[in-house]
């Protein structure tokens, strides 16, 4: 689904990613772990070009989205992203946060869609609005926050914010979801509720790439674990093998510290 080929990323003179090549297949749950500063977050942010790669390519749906001449916005609709700091839109209610993107981006396509005879979805702005709202409420129910629909993000707890952020990312019907340390900014007792939503999402067959420090989550949900160290994939394996038989010395010392 996403082919990453020889990905390099430098910030000024500082080379963070030094050639990463991997493939994320459909339905896979890839967990990325590594010490801080190793480039795992940068790797994730390069996948939807939040950071433009210095060189290398990222093939998504047959197109190299690292190419600056490609319409990245169209592809980002299909790549959901969840941030460490939630980044909910502070000026919008929870419901608006979730339905803003599907409504506004759907509105643009409405004219083109109307000409397509096989198209059966909403045809007017009003219908689209109702459709998006219904969809948003369904997603909020899915993450267990339907009663907070008219609240503003500043009144929510960290765990609730992150669940709304997941619902917002899901609202665009993405093909793959990227999680950038989704539980690192949360109180320990709120980590569980967010991980539960993510587990439910994984069980529904979503393709996921998760940067996390939650080793339990990696072991339970992951289908493949990447260990990124100093800008390269130092080791990758299935979670069972990864945690039971670490191959490299670097991973052994890392695991002994975090487990």
């Amino acid at each position, binding site marked *: 689904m996403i082919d990453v080929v020889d990905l390099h990323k430098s910030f000024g003179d500082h080379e963070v990613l030094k050639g990463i090549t991997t493939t994320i297949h459909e339905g896979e749950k890839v967990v990325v772990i590594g010490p801080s500063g190793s480039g795992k977050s940068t790797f994730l942010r390069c996948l*939807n070009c*939040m950071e433009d790669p210095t060189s290398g390519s990222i093939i998504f749906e047959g197109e190299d989205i690292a190419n*600056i*001449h*490609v*319409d*990245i*916005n*169209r592809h*980002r*609709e299909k*790549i*959901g*992203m969840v*941030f460490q*700091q939630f*980044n*909910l*839109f*502070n*000026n*919008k*209610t929870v419901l608006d946060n979730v339905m*803003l*993107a599907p409504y*506004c*981006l759907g509105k643009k396509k409405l004219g083109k869609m109307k000409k397509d005879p096989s198209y059966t979805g909403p045809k007017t702005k009003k219908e689209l609005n109702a459709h998006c709202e219904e969809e948003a409420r369904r997603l909020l129910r899915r993450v267990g926050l339907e009663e907070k629909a008219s609240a*503003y*993000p*500043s*009144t929510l707890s960290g765990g609730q914010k992150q669940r709304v*952020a997941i619902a*917002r*990312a899901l*609202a*665009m019907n993405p093909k793959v979801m990227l999680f950038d340390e989704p539980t690192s900014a949360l109180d320990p007792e709120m980590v569980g509720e967010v991980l539960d939503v993510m587990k439910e999402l994984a069980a529904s067959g979503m393709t996921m790439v998760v940067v996390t420090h939650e080793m339990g989550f990696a072991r339970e949900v992951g289908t493949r674990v990447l260990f990124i160290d100093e800008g390269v994939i130092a080791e990758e394996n299935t979670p069972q093998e990864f945690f039971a038989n670490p191959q490299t010395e670097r991973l052994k010392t890392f695991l002994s510290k975090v487990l």
Partner: protein
Amino acid sequence: MLTDFSLKWDKFIVNFIDKGGYKQVVDGLENTILVAVVGLVIGMLIGVVIAVISVMPKYPILPYAIQNRFDRFLDRFPKKPLLRVVSFYYFFYAIMWILQRIPFILQKICSLYVALFRGTPVMVQLLMGYFVLLPSMGLKVTAVQASMLIFGLNSGAYVSEIMRGGINSVDAGQLEAARAVGFSYSASMIKIVVPQAIKNILPTLGNEFIALIKETSIIGYAGALDLVYAFKQIGTSTYEYTVPYIVLSVIYIALVVVITIGLKIMERWLAKSDRRR
């Protein structure tokens, strides 16, 4: 002293009410408010545009559709250097090069504009605009219209800097999140970042509006009838300035108090997304 004042007051009342001085004052008040409000609206529009331009990414880039068309077009040219020169390849390449740097060029123009309008007194701008530039362009406008334009342009320069600060005060994550769900740079700015920025800068913007209302007192120099001009005429007709100027000051204070209350209400309304009440 007191009898002296009551004498002056009577004189003023006679002139203000009986001789119809209030009509001019009402017109003057209308013009003062009109120039300030229209000036602020124009200033906000200019300010937002300049602020967004000045925070745009600096690296050369074109919208993908235009860039792709250019790429395909330039690909059709011959590869030999001499043939390229003859076939105007470099001419089209130069056009692309300039288009790619439009944000950079716009930024330079905007900083020149800001330097110009912050660097000269608004009085000079008004005289220059109304008596020199606008007539020389063949535009026939009234003094009030010219004042609206000049004050709009002037406050645009100030608002742009206020606005830039406001945009920078919005967490970068907001823009990132909007881009991540598929919004373009401009759509994320308009829908997410600028509304939050305006909320943050509202107190400063109110400051600018209050300053603007008082600065408009100079439009009399262009021959426009404003509050100051109206009261000055009442004073001139009686050779008695004490009372007219006191009343003038009271009207300005009243205006500013009303604006302050209005801003408080607006701030509270915009703060509904905050936890503060």
